[in-house]
């Protein structure tokens, strides 16, 4: 039953990433003068949880950083040190380093060791600069470490440095194993090999004993072993040459308590562990230390729920245990363990009352809260692979199609004779719709997922550029398809950067123009019809039309003074176009805006710029809610059906003869409400046979994309419906003017028009005079 540790890596990475993001959010929101202790605790918990996880998986670099971070945080949250802006910066830097290290482990990206060292130094010096370092009360300051437990750092004042676990020192552990299979044995040896040198020897009773030379702590060993076997069956003894005298004995006991992980204790069964004592004797002669360890674990080995409910009540009887240890020191091994057992049993029965016990109880209590976020998150959500969700969505898509087929066939039946069937089918229709909606909502994620990364970026950028920017997000709860969420991040990052760099002016400039020194940058998301509209708004300088035109003509673009504002503003999407006088490392190189535009177009979205010189700029992105389903208008052309995305249709009309105009008797146009729009005959574009050859016989659909309008000439409108988008490229290839295909109710395939391309193709066609 070997468990490959790597299968848990992903969970750890995901969780750590979430925790880091959470910590960053809290840090940015923190009030430096009067920090909320809840927030501080939450940040501490995040750091702590990451440390625990990192140690379990052996990511020591992360453990180190989180450790110093935690120390500092601990002081602050205990009010031993006042929070300063310096601290917040250091914490943010630490978060970045952790993220880097996390990515290093996850994606094998490069880790800047210098930066890591810098951050560590900063944190350390801050931690030491904290002035009065209050020596915490012995038991009241529990060492919060769970897994890594460099026990030495546990400020158990009553104890001298516990010699058994020297800081960073090499220790030799003897690990007596229960009977396990050869395979498990080999696995275990391999796992332990990661910690240090392992030698295995077979005992007379057929069991194995590993001798592990390592600088890791005992709980590390237990953590590793527990993936392969029940840690309670393990007998780990310290072969420490460092233990000098029996006087130190109280200390190991005291340290053993916090050192052991209560998480493992929960699974322990005392009954099991006690009988193993004799085995220990057989395998190891260093009895004293061994027993301390034994007892230490004995404390945790209370089985079951009782213990959990009492908040790890087994910590409580601290004093009795001490007694037990003392007795043990004088007496024989076995009785002592028995006594310890009795004591534990006693405690389990009666709730802890002694003050010492009460304070000690805080440790596990906090540990429990440490784990609480993860636990509660687990109950309210589950992690599911995206591919599973996609598969579900695909299947539901199929179901919708099948259901539509049934519906269509049933509609042809005699409604009186088949009343029951028809009723059932209409019920099925309703249920299918509901199911589809629910399934689609699985993929929906709040925009907060994207927005949450910007406050930090804006803060850093503003500081770098010497600007003052107030960042506001609106509608962060608006939901968007996960696929789109991921793809919108990059374009939005560009836009926000641009707004801070080029949009918002410097404080002096702002003051001179009578604006408040602090600029305002708003990121908003809202549903609007069938799409979601994301806007980046700044109250900065706005786009300068004249400057844009000048720059454009200098770049050799075709421009004229008579261009509309929209057209002029759209020039910034041209590749290599930048009006920034100075190229900074933030922006101004002219790459970016064209990429933004391209990315958004590829998502089926549109970008629009609104700007007023001196008052600010708004860049508005409209995206479809989801990539998988489209609201479309199906139109007929000859024998075929085509689907046009509804959000790109402005209006439809049956033109009158007198509204149709020509240029040189070729370029067909329609005169609609004062505008002349080119008519694109779809049959000519797609070389489709049809009997309807003149616009007055068919229907004109005014479509709009990328700021351009055109009238698409088709035979007739068929109906409006939701269609499931299928890629043509899966088995075929991309077809110009077609963005995908869908399956209609009768099982036939209809092509979905790629409206922007169709408009472009139409223009070529008209120029080439294909239509005549």
């Amino acid at each position: 039953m070997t468990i490959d540790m790597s299968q848990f890596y992903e969970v750890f990475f995901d969780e750590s990433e979430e925790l880091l993001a959470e910590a960053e959010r809290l840090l940015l929101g923190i009030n430096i003068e009067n920090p909320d202790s809840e927030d501080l605790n939450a940040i501490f918990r995040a750091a702590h949880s990451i440390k625990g996880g990192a140690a379990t998986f052996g990511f020591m670099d992360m453990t180190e950083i989180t450790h110093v971070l935690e120390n500092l945080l601990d002081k602050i949250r205990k009010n031993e040190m006042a929070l300063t802006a310096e601290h917040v910066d250091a914490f943010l830097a630490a978060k970045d380093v952790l993220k880097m290290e996390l990515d290093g482990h996850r994606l094998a990206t490069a880790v800047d060791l210098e930066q890591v060292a810098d951050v560590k130094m900063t944190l350390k010096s801050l931690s030491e600069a904290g002035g009065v370092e209050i020596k915490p009360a012995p038991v009241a300051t529990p060492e919060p470490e769970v897994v890594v437990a460099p026990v030495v750092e546990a400020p158990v004042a009553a104890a001298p440095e516990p010699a058994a676990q020297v800081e960073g020192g090499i220790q030799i552990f003897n690990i007596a194993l229960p009977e396990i299979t050869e395979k498990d044995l080999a696995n275990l040896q391999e796992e332990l090999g990661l910690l240090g040198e392992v030698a295995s020897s077979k005992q007379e009773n057929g069991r194995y004993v590993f001798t592990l030379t390592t600088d890791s702590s005992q709980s590390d060993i237990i953590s590793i072993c527990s993936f392969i076997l029940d840690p309670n069956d393990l007998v780990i003894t310290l072969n420490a040459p460092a233990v000098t005298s029996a006087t130190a004995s109280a200390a190991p006991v005291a340290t053993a308590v916090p050192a052991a992980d209560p998480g493992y204790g929960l699974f322990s069964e005392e009954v099991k562990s006690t009988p193993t004592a004799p085995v220990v004797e057989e395998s190891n002669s260093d009895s004293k230390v061994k027993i301390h360890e034994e007892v230490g674990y004995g404390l945790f080995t209370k089985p079951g729920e009782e213990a959990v409910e009492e908040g790890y009540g087994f910590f409580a009887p601290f004093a009795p245990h001490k007694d037990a240890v003392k007795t043990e020191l004088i007496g024989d091994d076995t009785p002592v363990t028995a006594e310890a057992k009795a004591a534990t049993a006693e405690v389990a029965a009666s709730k802890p009352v002694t003050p010492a016990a009460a304070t000690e109880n805080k440790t596990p209590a906090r540990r429990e809260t440490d784990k609480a976020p993860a636990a509660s998150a687990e109950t309210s959500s589950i992690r599911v692979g995206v591919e599973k969700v996609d598969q579900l969505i695909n299947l539901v898509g199929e179901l919708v199609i099948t259901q539509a087929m049934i519906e269509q066939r049933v509609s042809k039946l005699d409604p009186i004779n088949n009343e029951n069937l028809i009723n059932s089918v209409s019920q099925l229709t309703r249920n299918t719709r509901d199911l589809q909606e629910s399934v689609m909502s699985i993929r929906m994620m709040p925009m907060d997922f994207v927005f949450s990364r910007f406050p930090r970026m804006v803060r850093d950028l503003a500081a770098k550029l010497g600007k003052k920017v107030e960042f506001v997000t609106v509608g962060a709860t608006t939901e968007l398809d996960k696929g789109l969420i991921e793809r919108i991040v990059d374009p939005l990052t560009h836009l926000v950067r641009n707004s801070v760099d080029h949009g918002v002016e410097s404080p002096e400039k702002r003051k001179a123009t009578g604006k408040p020194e602090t600029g305002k940058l708003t990121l908003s998301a809202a549903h609007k019809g069938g799409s979601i509209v994301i806007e980046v708004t700044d109250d900065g300088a706005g786009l300068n039309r004249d400057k844009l035109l000048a720059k454009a003509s200098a770049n050799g673009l075709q421009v004229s003074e008579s261009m509309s504002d929209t057209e002029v503003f759209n020039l910034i999407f041209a590749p290599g176009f930048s009006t920034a006088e100075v190229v900074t490392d933030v922006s101004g190189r002219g790459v970016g805006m064209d990429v933004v535009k391209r990315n958004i177009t590829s998502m089926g979205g549109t970008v629009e710029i609104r700007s007023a010189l001196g008052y600010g700029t708004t860049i508005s992105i409209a995206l479809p809610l989801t990539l998988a389903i489209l609201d479309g208008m199906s139109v007929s052309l000859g024998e075929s059906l085509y689907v046009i995305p509804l959000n790109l249709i402005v209006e439809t009309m049956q033109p009158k003869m007198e509204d149709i105009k020509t240029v040189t008797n070729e370029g067909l146009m329609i005169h609609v409400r004062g505008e002349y729009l080119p008519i694109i005959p779809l049959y000519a574009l797609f070389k489709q046979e049809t009997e309807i050859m003149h616009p007055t016989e068919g229907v004109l659909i005014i479509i709009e994309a990328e700021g351009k309008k055109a009238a698409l000439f088709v035979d007739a409108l068929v109906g409006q419906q939701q269609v499931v988008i299928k890629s043509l490229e899966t088995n075929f290839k991309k077809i110009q003017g077609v963005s995908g295909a869908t399956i209609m109710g009768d099982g036939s395939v209809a092509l979905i028009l790629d409206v922007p391309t169709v408009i472009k193709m139409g223009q070529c066609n008209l120029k080439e005079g294909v239509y005549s």
Partner: protein
Amino acid sequence: MSATTDTNLETNGAEGTGHSQEYLTFVLADESYGIDILKVQEIRGYDAVTKIANTPEFIKGVVNLRGLIVPIVDLRIKFGLGNVVYDDFTVVIILNLNGRVVGIVVDGVSDVMNLNGNQVRTVPDIVSSIDTKYITGLATVEDKMFILVDIEQLMTSDEMALMDSAVVH
């Protein structure tokens, strides 16, 4: 094909030494072709096809194959063979080429036969409507010549314009 041929073929296959492979054979006009049977997913009738603009004539369009959008190629047009009519007897062989599903229209499917290496002859230099590099060999069974086609290479070639690379090319 009659049952007798079938048995003969099997005996042929069993006699042969060396590497043997199963082929699905189909007819285009007077010629018989064989393709690797492992590439064949299913055989079905010819349904209403949705035409696609601006594609070569031999690409008939796409069909809905249980939710998959599958392009249909008429090999009769591509090879310039056979009687291009579409009726109830028109057969479509659905191929699964490394995950990509493509349908080909042929005159008729004849048989499945086992051919071993020593039944297969190399192709001489000839001029045909498809590049001879896609023909892996010629097999003779009962005085009848079967043209063995590497259907995967052929269908994924630029010539067929079924893949995106073809557009780039």
